Every structure is written in structure tokens, then in C-alpha cells.
């Protein structure tokens, strides 16, 4: 497998050298895989950004391939690499970093960004957003479409239930109380999704109870610490003790529609849904930071840019150019307004467009303000398997098959076995 990649790389570089003179005149072609991770006509926005880039860079042509969701994007771009098809860069899950390093698939931005200007750019992003992309002392992923979880709530329903629509719950206690009050025969008080990315939601609860779920090197997990178990217990209690949330697992895919249809008064969801909710809601809604237990907390989420190792120097340069373009403050502001994802640098929020937008539509800055309470998204070596262990444990607890403690003890035991070789 690696011999193949080496062969292809060597022959590509050789060819590039042979045609050195003409190479400077020839177009550099980039293939970029990206996941459209929000509902909406995002392909068009990506395409328009890409064509703007091509206008300013006539000797680079970009083929942007929409690959599905994050999982699909990773599978597809790695499959393309393995089969020798071109792929120079991709937007993939911020948490894929360890897998990608282990597969020897990506290069570090720290190595590629050589000029002073480039280095300045590399360090211009919000630190919380760099956590997932930094390991082994280097930066491997640069933020593009990043998010946190936020709490969407139906202000009209709050008023109906006798709660102050401008005072969303700030603590676990308040949340349980409010959600219980908001629950009627026709609607639930709160929904926290437990299919799709249950571990992500769970990270928020764990952080709010003062814990992170893995170490900074991706080699250890902390699934069954006492506060972590209590966090899962609280999640379970919301449906069983407070009867404010449906029992069993709650489907990620239909959550937004449930909220828009008035089936739940509160939902925890990615800030990437903001623009879609804004467009479709026919009621007054608000967005708030997630409530605190010992502290506020949320995981970051979303996708980073990665550059693949198996590309020529010229291609890597061109990829870097494209990435710098797509992450520039102006584009980041544009992206944020159109989707609800966070502007990825302080500079983005200083642009006129975003300043104005945030003023007119305050919910747009909740996610950014929450960044100071943010923690890296769950990411370790063998991340797919470890993640599945945690997801299964969460679902087992929420469906009542195991107690939170039993489920998390089990997950921790298995995760430790999986990560044994990496210690």
C-alpha cells in the first residue's frame, strides 16, 4: 500500500522536475473534498468562493468534490488517496487528525507555512479552535467550518409556560426545572439528540461537570470518572426523572424539524443550524449558551482544512493559497453569516459585514462568546472505534439497557485496551 503511494509520489515529483520549465506556466490542478455539513444550498457557496479564488489565481484550477457528511468525506478522500486518484486537500472532521497522521496521509501546516506572513496567518485563529488540530507540537488542521453546541429555545413557549423568554436557564437545575414546566401533552421541554453524534452532546455535559474525556495526546480516555458518570446520569434523568425529554434515543436528523414544528421547546444543536432555523422558524426563538453545572462548557465541532502528503510541492503551495483564501476574515465572515458556523478568527468578527450582522442578530455571537468555555472535540488514536464505544455506552444508558456507571465503565475498559499499544 505504502509502496504504491511512494511510487506514485516519486513518479509525480520526477515528472514535475522534468517538466520544470513548463511547469511554471502550466496550471496547477487541485482536487478538494469537502463535506456539506449543514442543510442548505452550501455547495453553491463553496463553489462561488472557489470560483472567486480561481479568478484571482488564474494558474490554479480547483475541482471541489462534495463527498457527503464528515464520515463520507473522510472515507472518500482516503479511498481516493489509496487508489492513486488525485486529492490535494480536504475539509474533514477536526477530530480525524490522529487517524490521518497514522495513515501518513497529511502534512503539517507548521512545516509548510514558511514565510513570516504565513506563520502569522497560521496563528491568527481562535485558540480554542486550534486544539483539535494541534498535536506532536505541530499544527495539522486549520479551522474552516467550526461550531459549538448552542441551546435554541422557543421564546413564545417560554412565555406561555410563565417563564421569562429573555432568561434562558443558566444551570442544570434551572434547565431541568424549566424543561419540566415547558412539557405539555403536545410538546416536550427539551431534546438533546442521541443518535448521530451522541458523544458530542455528552462532551458538553461532561465539561459542564468539570471533566474532559480524553488527554491532549489522544492516548487516554476518561470515560468513567465520577463526574462524567454523573453527567450521563443527568442526561438520563431529564427523560426519566424529570419527564421533560422523550425516552430512548432522540434522532439527530429530525431534531431541527421537531423544533421548528413545535414538538420541543428547547433543543441542543450545532450553531451551524442557526441560519436554517432563522429562515424557517415561524415563532420567536432565542439562542443561549449551554447551562453550567460546575462551569459552562461545550465541545467545539466541525471541519478543518487538511493538506495531503501525496501531492507535489507546487500543489501544496497552491493548496495553502486556497486555504488562506477560504479562511481569510472576509470569507470567514461571509461563511458565518450564510451558515451560522463561527467566524474562525477575531479578525473575522472585526469585518464590517460580521459586525453589522451580529448587531442585527445577536444569536450569531453566542457560539463565539462560548468559545472561552470550549474544549476540544473527542479525538484519539483509533478514533472511530473509541468513538463508537462511547456512543454505544451513551445509547445503552439512555435506553435503559445499562446504568450510566456500568455503560461507561465498560466503554472505558475497552477503550483502554484499544489504546494500549499507543502508550
Amino acid at each position: 500500500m505504502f509502496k504504491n503511494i511512494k511510487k506514485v509520489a516519486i513518479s509525480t515529483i520526477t515528472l514535475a522536475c522534468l517538466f520544470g520549465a513548463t511547469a511554471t506556466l502550466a496550471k496547477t490542478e487541485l482536487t478538494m473534498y469537502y463535506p456539506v455539513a449543514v442543510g442548505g444550498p452550501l455547495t453553491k457557496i463553496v463553489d462561488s468562493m472557489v470560483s472567486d479564488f480561481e479568478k484571482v489565481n488564474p494558474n490554479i484550477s480547483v475541482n471541489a468534490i462534495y463527498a457527503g457528511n464528515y464520515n463520507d468525506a473522510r472515507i472518500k478522500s482516503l479511498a481516493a488517496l489509496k487508489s492513486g486518484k488525485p486529492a490535494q486537500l480536504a475539509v474533514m472532521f477536526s477530530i480525524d487528525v490522529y487517524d490521518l497522521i497514522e495513515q501518513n496521509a497529511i502534512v503539517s501546516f507548521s512545516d509548510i507555512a514558511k514565510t513570516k506572513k504565513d506563520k502569522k496567518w497560521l496563528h491568527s485563529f481562535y485558540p480554542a479552535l486550534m486544539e483539535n488540530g494541534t498535536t506532536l507540537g505541530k499544527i495539522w488542521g486549520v479551522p474552516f467550518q467550526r461550531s459549538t453546541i448552542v441551546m435554541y429555545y422557543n421564546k413564545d413557549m417560554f412565555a406561555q409556560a410563565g417563564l421569562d423568554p429573555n432568561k434562558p436557564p443558566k444551570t442544570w437545575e434551572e434547565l431541568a426545572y424549566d424543561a419540566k414546566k415547558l412539557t405539555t401533552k403536545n410538546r416536550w421541554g427539551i431534546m438533546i439528540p442521541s443518535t448521530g453524534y451522541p458523544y458530542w452532546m455528552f462532551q458538553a455535559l461532561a465539561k459542564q461537570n468539570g471533566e474532559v474525556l480524553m488527554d491532549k495526546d489522544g492516548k487516554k480516555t476518561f470515560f468513567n470518572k465520577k463526574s462524567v458518570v454523573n453527567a450521563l446520569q443527568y442526561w438520563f434523568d431529564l427523560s426519566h426523572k424529570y419527564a421533560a425529554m422523550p425516552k430512548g434515543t432522540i434522532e439527530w436528523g429530525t431534531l431541527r424539524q421537531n423544533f421548528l414544528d413545535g414538538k420541543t421547546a428547547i433543543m441542543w444543536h450545532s450553531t451551524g443550524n442557526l441560519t436554517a432555523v432563522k429562515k424557517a422558524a415561524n415563532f420567536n426563538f432565542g439562542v443561549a449558551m449551554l447551562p453550567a453545572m460546575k462551569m459552562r462548557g461545550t465541545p467545539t465541532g466541525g471541519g478543518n482544512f487538511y493538506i495531503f502528503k501525496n501531492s507535489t510541492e507546487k500543489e501544496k503551495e497552491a493548496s495553502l493559497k486556497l486555504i488562506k483564501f477560504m479562511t481569510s476574515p472576509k470569507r470567514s465572515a461571509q461563511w458565518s453569516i450564510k451558515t451560522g458556523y463561527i467566524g474562525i478568527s477575531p479578525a473575522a468578527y472585526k469585518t464590517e459585514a460580521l459586525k453589522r450582522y451580529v448587531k442585527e442578530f445577536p444569536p450569531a455571537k453566542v457560539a463565539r462568546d462560548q468559545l472561552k468555555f470550549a474544549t476540544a472535540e473527542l479525538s484519539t488514536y483509533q478514533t472511530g472505534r473509541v468513538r463508537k464505544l462511547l456512543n454505544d455506552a451513551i445509547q445503552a444508558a439512555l435506553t435503559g439497557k445499562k446504568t450510566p456507571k456500568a455503560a461507561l465503565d465498560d466503554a472505558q475498559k475497552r477503550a483502554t485496551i484499544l489504546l494500549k499499544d499507543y502508550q
Partner: protein
Amino acid sequence: MKIHITKYLKILFAWSLAIIWALPILYAFWAAFHTSDFVTHFNLFAPLTLENFKIAASQAPFLRYMLNTIILVVIIIIGQLIICTLGAYAFARFDFYGKKVAFFLVLLQLMIVPEILIIQNYKTLVNLGLTDTILGIGLPYMASAFGIFLLRQNFKMIPKELDDAARIEGCSLMCILWKVYIPLSKPTYLAYILVSISYHWNNFLWPLVVSNSQDVRPLTVGLAIFGAPESGVQWSIISAATLISVAPLLVAFLIFQKQFVNSFMHTGIK
């Protein structure tokens, strides 16, 4: 009297079952042609809209997916017709060393379909450089055990006298195949083609694994990706997308109902 009651009960049961069976698809039509407010409220006079289709079509290249699927199905069928005809001819009319074992091996593929061996087959495609190509999706299916089996049955039933008559007129073996066997098996060929079209139009797992880009992706994979974005789905749009994906086959089926049903029946009789 009693006879009448059972008869009416039977009719009632048949109709009720038919209505229940049709409900999901009818519902998909309802959701696709109405805006999302009416997705759960059945106001019979709610306004119809094509908006969902417009949105679905603009969010994913369904027309391209459709083209990919058509190309895929066409090349698979052409491949199958050639390879299965030759193979069936061999098994029906020739005696060769190891024929019984060979036939058993062919039958094995009825159970061990390419998707079962998905990992190794994927690696093979990688080695052949055929990942993310329509040919790559179709290749494993071109030697269809079902096709060979069906055609062999049919060829076997053709009287040998016709063979001899053609040979006397100076026909070579291939000429006999072309002039005698194939024309006389037209119904079976039609049946097989229709069954194969249905099967491959709706195939999902293998195309999912092989296709990466939207120039190769067929409708089933496109629909699945469309319906699985990170932030969730909207029913009316998903229904519209679903209808777009099934429309060609559904329309063809409704028009050529008799032929479809007869084909499936024909292949079952064996």
C-alpha cells in the same frame, strides 16, 4: 349466505391490505408536493407546490446521478447479455471436462454475491485502478450466475433438430447461437433484462463503496448522501428527492407493468 360473507370479507381484506401497502408511497407523494407546514397536517385542499423539487434539485445534481445510473445499468446489461449468453450456451450444448463442477461453482455465485466480498473486491478495484468509475461498479456483476442459469434452462429446451438443420445449412457454432438460440429465447431475455434493470438501478452498498465523485455516483448513493447531512433533514425536501430518484423506474414500471410482472414471473418458473 355464508359463501357471500367470506367472499366479501376476502375482498375487504385484499383492499385494506392494498391500501395499507400503498400508504407509504402515497404519503411520500403528499409530502413532496406540499410545503413543510402540511407535511403533518392533512388538509386535502392544501396548495400544491413544486418548491421542494426545485430545492432538492438545486442542492444535489440528481440529473447527473440519473445519467450515471442509466450508464451503469446499460453497461451492466450489455456485459451480462454477452457473457451470460456465451456461458449458458457452453453449459447447455457442450460437454467439457469438469462441466458439473464448473456449473456448481457458477451456482455458488447465486449466494456469494459481490457485496459479501466487498473488502477484497474493493482492493481488487484499487489494484485495477477502477475505483470511482462506472465500469468499476458494474464489472463484478457482468458474470451473473442467475443469467447463466436462466438462459441455460432456456437453451436446453430448444430442440436439437433446429441445431442440426442450421448446421446442414453451413452454420458455424456461433452462427447457430446467433440464428437459432438467441431468437428463440427472446421472452427469457426480456424477462432477464427487466429483472436486472430493477436490481441494478436499486443497488446501493457496492456503488457506495466504489463511487467517490458525483460524476460516478448513482441515484441510490446520491439519495442516501442527500438524506444524511450533519444538521438534519427536512421531510418535504427528502420526499421530493426520493421521488426524483425513483421516478424513472417507477414510471417505466407503471407503463410496462404487464411486461415487468410477466418477467418476474417468468424468471421464477425456471
